[in-house]
């Protein structure tokens, strides 16, 4: 139980909020897919820090599932843009 891990987790969430700018204003579809991928990774890191702060392992399972789903989603959007799907 220490405050600085929570502080770093809040910093990562702030980065995710900044990345929303690119998600909203991205000119093309690929920009939005890239921004959502970055938001997913940054949210993963915030979840790791929050799990360490609270001492509960259950948040790490959520982070693992988010990582797997974000990878699959980005790959499928790329395949769709390339016309292979």
């Amino acid at each position, binding site marked *: 139980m220490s405050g600085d891990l929570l502080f770093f987790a809040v910093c990562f969430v702030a980065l995710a909020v900044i990345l929303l700018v690119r998600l909203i204003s991205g000119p093309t579809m690929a920009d939005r897919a890239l921004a959502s991928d970055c938001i997913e990774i*940054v949210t993963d890191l915030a979840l790791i820090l929050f799990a360490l702060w609270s001492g509960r392992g259950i948040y790490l399972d959520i982070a693992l599932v988010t990582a797997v789903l974000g990878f699959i989603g980005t790959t499928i959007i790329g395949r769709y843009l390339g016309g292979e799907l």
Partner: protein
Amino acid sequence: MRIAVDVFIVIGLFFALAGTVGVIRMPDFFCRMQSSTNIATLGVLGVVIGGLIYAIGVLGDGGMAVKIAIIGIFNILANPIASHALMKGAYAHMKKPVDGLVTDQLGEDLVEEDE
């Protein structure tokens, strides 16, 4: 011990910040992709190494350490595949010739194949 954890997490935070600024500032899609790799490599590695030290040294919880290591390894292994697929798809989707490139040898070779 706590100082080492904080140093690693601050390194991760710095590179994640640099990647975020790059994603916001870069002029075209390919350069944004290069900056986002910054988040996915040293941003992830810094937080994961710091978290491993904290989970083993302070909490003494082996299960959490193993899960954090799996998340880090999975992110490092899966991110190049996702970014390669997205890059290829975006290049195929774009209008040719692509603006802002110094040289585009892939586009030249594709045009040669068509003729």
